[in-house]
């Protein structure tokens, strides 16, 4: 029997995790020491090497969630895989959404003098975070996998709509939040600043991928535990009843015997 109590890591995630740590360290070094202070923003410009990348990963998480939900809703593509991908995207997206709000708030305090302002971009991001909490709460509330996937995919589509409006908020409304820096015909950023900003996208992208894969595998293990956990516990009890010498290893009384760890990630 496959053991649900298995780690969610593999060689891929270990490599990914270490390279994420290394690029984050490099990003910190470049961001704090190598890149010069800005003409307009001074030292506060260093938030540029955290906040935009984190916010992009937040969008990426909800984007993956929406695409996976559409794939699940599409009858010909329907597979539990998409549902796992959707929850992984939403949960990692929610973490990055909170990080976006926190880093944005710190930057706002530094450059605008306030922790929060009622700006279209900020308000929409806060609503997006509330929506994602609702999405995750809804998932926890439904036990039947099919109903859960159906209900949550509908909420996911709404979150995707909010992401799109949020992204264009700075160009549609007259907001305090600054507009696009990189994705414009003639970017206003050069040299070390540009290099560090691009590196920050790589660093947080790696962190994002690492978290996403782990969360996906955790979902696989959880499903496996739901299916096989009971029979495993039963087997362990039986083994206990027949005495410690009947089990593979020596197990102390009251402790559950575990078969050797064996990971099969689908």
């Amino acid at each position, binding site marked *: 029997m496959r053991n649900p109590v298995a780690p969610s890591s593999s060689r891929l995630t270990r490599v990914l995790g270490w390279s994420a740590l290394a690029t984050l360290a490099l990003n910190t070094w470049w961001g704090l020491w190598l890149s010069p202070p800005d003409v307009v923003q001074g030292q506060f410009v260093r938030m540029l090497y955290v906040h935009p990348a984190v916010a992009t990963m937040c969008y990426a998480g909800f984007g993956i969630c929406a695409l996976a939900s559409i794939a699940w809703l599409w009858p010909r593509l329907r597979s539990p895989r998409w549902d796992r991908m959707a929850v992984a995207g939403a949960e990692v997206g929610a973490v990055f959404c909170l990080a976006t709000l926190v880093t944005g708030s710190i930057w706002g305090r530094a450059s605008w003098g306030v922790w929060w302002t009622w700006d279209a971009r900020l308000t929409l991001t806060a609503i997006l975070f509330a929506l994602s909490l*609702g999405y995750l*709460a809804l998932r926890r*509330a439904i036990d039947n996998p099919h109903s859960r996937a159906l209900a949550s995919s509908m909420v996911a589509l*709404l979150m995707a709509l909010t992401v799109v409006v949020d992204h264009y908020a700075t160009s549609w409304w007259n907001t305090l939040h600054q507009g696009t820096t990189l994705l414009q015909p003639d970017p206003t950023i050069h040299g070390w600043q540009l290099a560090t900003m691009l590196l920050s996208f790589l660093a947080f992208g790696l962190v994002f991928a690492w978290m996403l894969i782990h969360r996906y595998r955790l979902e696989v293990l959880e499903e496996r535990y739901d299916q096989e956990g009971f029979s495993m516990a039963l087997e362990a009890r039986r083994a206990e009843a027949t005495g410690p010498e009947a089990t593979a290893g020596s197990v102390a009384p009251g402790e559950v015997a575990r078969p050797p760890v064996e990971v099969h990630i689908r």
Partner: protein
Amino acid sequence: MWRDALVVAAKDLRIEGRAKVALNQVIPYSLVVLLLFGFAFDQDRPLLVQAAPGLFWLAVLFSGLLAVQRSFAIETADGAVDNLRMSALEPAGVFLGKAAAVALELLVLEALLAGGIVVLFHSKLAGAGLLIASALLSTAGVAASGVAYGALSMGLRVRETLLPLLLAPVLAPVVLAATEAWRAAFGLSGGGSSSEGWRWLGLLACFAAIYLAGGVLSFGALMEET
């Protein structure tokens, strides 16, 4: 579909007519909420006049949550929803009927609450056309999204707490747009012209249209599952 919608709306309103839950509980609750807003602003009259449109729509939001909860409580009690599923009624019709019943209850509530802000907050109602148009559109939006999310959380053990969490962020744009429209109608917004208010109606109409369409398309699947 339309005939089914009428049947379901009539059923829900008949139940309300007999049980009088909205009348005896939801409406008094919303008036108490208005009173509490008054305490929160320390009965500061100019401030209350300024904030009245926003407070009005917040009160509608809170009461709307209760109206939606009630609308699905009557279906889950005694497994009534199974009868609804087994009846030959079209799901889209059931959705529209339930939304219409909730909307009608909310419109009555809004009329009373408007009287409430005039008496308690000394608001001067003005710009009748804008006022009524925005009230109708936002009520349609609140009822449509409320019924869609109500169906989503219907069969769940935690529905009483989950529904407000799901619905409140969704309704945030409605509260914002309706408040701005009413502020413009009352002449409280910076521009002072009511043409600014009419622009917010576009957002309200979009919201109502999206949720009405979404509800009509998805209600069948939601009813099957929950």
